[in-house]
């Protein structure tokens, strides 16, 4: 094993040693992890409020929703696709679950129906991409506006409130000091990790993303794999829609507005490649944590809100720049 290769990546023309590729992936996560750690330590020193338990709980809650959609986005990005519909699917799901709860359906039924409609949405995207041969960017961009429109139609543009107390309580509660919302992140990370790393489906996802026609030649069920990716992403977006409805005590079509971009940003900060075949479970969660921490930290330090936005942009560029620098062959 060539240790230099761990740092520089495979030499041009050489095939990456799979063991080294794995170490490099973990190192990359480690890099983002250290960045999170540095930001957290700096903020704890700069603001007496940052390290308090209630604030850490806040940051975890704030990052949870973005983490889950970022995991979904990552699965799609691994197949060299993109899901731009996520924000609207979050909004739509928040409306569906709120309407059903409002009509008196039990919480379990409302959640199941909402998740099923999410799967349906993802299946429609995948159908357009595989059978209709539409570029993922276009198909899910169309989804972005379509599902927002459906949510507006369903609600008449009104916020849907009066949700049951049990439903709302979930998003505020915590078990052994960890907010329920973050347990949901863990609940999504574990199956995603297993799928990506220990199943044939996972191999297929990476294969489709690295070389689609090659995958087809190697008898990878490309269509089925792409269906899985988009349905999984929409399902996770629907789960976040349910969680955000619980968190705000409201279903509104505008819930999740522009979150597809937060999902892309979190995923990319976490080392996912926009060109497919590179990405894991920890990266997007760390990426979402960085974005939430920046917002929270800037608020605690009473930064001007405009600078907060600029700072976010600069950090996204900086993280991805250094990540790529590390990956460049010398």
């Amino acid at each position, binding site marked *: 094993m060539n240790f230099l290769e761990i740092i520089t990546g495979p030499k041009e023309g050489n095939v990456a040693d799979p063991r080294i590729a794995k170490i490099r992936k973990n190192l990359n996560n480690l890099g983002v992890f250290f960045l999170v750690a540095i930001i957290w330590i700096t903020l704890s020193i700069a603001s007496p409020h940052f390290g308090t338990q209630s604030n850490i709980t*806040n940051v975890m809650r704030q990052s949870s929703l973005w983490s889950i959609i970022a995991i979904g986005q990552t699965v799609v990005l691994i197949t060299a696709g993109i899901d731009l519909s996520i924000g609207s699917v979050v909004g739509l799901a928040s409306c569906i679950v709120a309407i059903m709860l409002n009509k008196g359906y039990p919480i379990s039924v409302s959640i199941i129906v909402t998740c099923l409609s999410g799967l349906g949405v993802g299946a429609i995207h995948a159908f357009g991409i595989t059978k209709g041969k539409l570029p993922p960017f276009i198909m899910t961009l169309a989804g972005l506006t379509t599902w927002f429109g459906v949510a507006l139609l369903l609600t008449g543009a009104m916020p849907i409130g009066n949700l049951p107390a049990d439903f709302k309580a979930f998003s505020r509660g915590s078990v052994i000091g960890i907010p329920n919302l973050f347990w949901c992140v863990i609940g999504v990370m574990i199956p995603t990790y297993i799928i990506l790393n220990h199943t044939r489906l996972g191999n297929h996802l990476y294969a489709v993303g690295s070389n689609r026609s090659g995958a087809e030649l190697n008898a990878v069920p490309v269509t089925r794999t792409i269906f899985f990716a988009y349905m999984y992403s929409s399902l996770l977006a629907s789960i976040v829609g349910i969680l955000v409805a619980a968190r705000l005590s409201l279903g509104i079509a*505008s819930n999740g507005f522009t979150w597809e971009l937060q999902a892309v940003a979190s995923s990319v900060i976490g080392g996912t490649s926009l060109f497919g075949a590179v990405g894991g479970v920890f990266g997007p969660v760390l990426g979402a944590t960085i974005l939430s921490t920046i917002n929270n930290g800037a608020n605690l330090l009473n930064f001007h809100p405009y600078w907060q936005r600029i700072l976010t942009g600069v950090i996204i560029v900086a993280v991805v720049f250094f990540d790529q620098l590390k990956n460049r062959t010398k």
Partner: protein
Amino acid sequence: MKFKFLLIITALIMGSFSAKAEKIPVIVKDSTSPFWQIVLDGGCTAGVELGIEVPLLGPTSEADIAGQINVLEDAVNSGADAIVIAATSFEGLGGPIDEAAKTVPVIVIDSIADSKNHSTFMTTNNVEGGRMGCQYLVDIIAEKHGAPEGEVAIVNYGAGPSSLRDRIQGCNEIFDAYPDIKLVATKIGDFTTTRQLNDTLDLITTFPNLRGIFDDALFGGLGTGQALSETGKAGEILAVTFDSSDELINMINEGTLQGLIIQDPWGMGNMGVKSALDAVNGKSLPAFTDTGATLVTKANINDAAIDAKLNPSLDCKP
């Protein structure tokens, strides 16, 4: 040949119809928000009353300034006789409104643009609304703590709209008038409830001695209210917000929020269309009409006059 003939006949019939009934579109800032639905219902009702056509238009986000300019231009090009519009941006809509006003009378409602040739501006005096809200906030802080003193914060829904700017200006005037009221932060959101929720949570964390919050818009108020009830700070930190919805009314009744400054959106849409028709008929209009703002608290929320404003019937069918 026959087909062509039919087309011409259809065109003639349609032409004669549109020549009779005036067409006065109402263009709101965000066709997806309950506040603007009420404005549109007022406009729609005026259309039914006056027997004129009132297309109900607007972009789907207050942040979509370019989208609203397109809607405005399309409305002028599609043969409107006058236009009623609420500007998403003071600067952005100034030029386009002046351009439209060359062809048809333009009635601006709710939020003014940097335009000179509009026929009239009908709105809540938002500076006054901001003063009203923050005066009440200072009053209840004084009542609770014995004196008008302590830390307060403003949570703004988003940068840009002149109505929000005016509310904050009015609010700041009041805060400035009390030397012991200290404004510790003004948060600027991105027109989403989640952002307002997170900003308010962070305010509560950063300023443990915070006594009051003024929020300047409906969806913002929902986020602020949620943050207060979530952290158990409701009633401890006093909060006043703008506009109303069922959920905000619940929050007033539960004591999560102490006051709502409500406007008369239905009247704005309704009077907007009526004034537009007056302008088409050559009547002169005053430069400014105040459509009024009202303070709603737990004490007066069940009054008949307030209830009618809080629960306008949204059943207009054009």
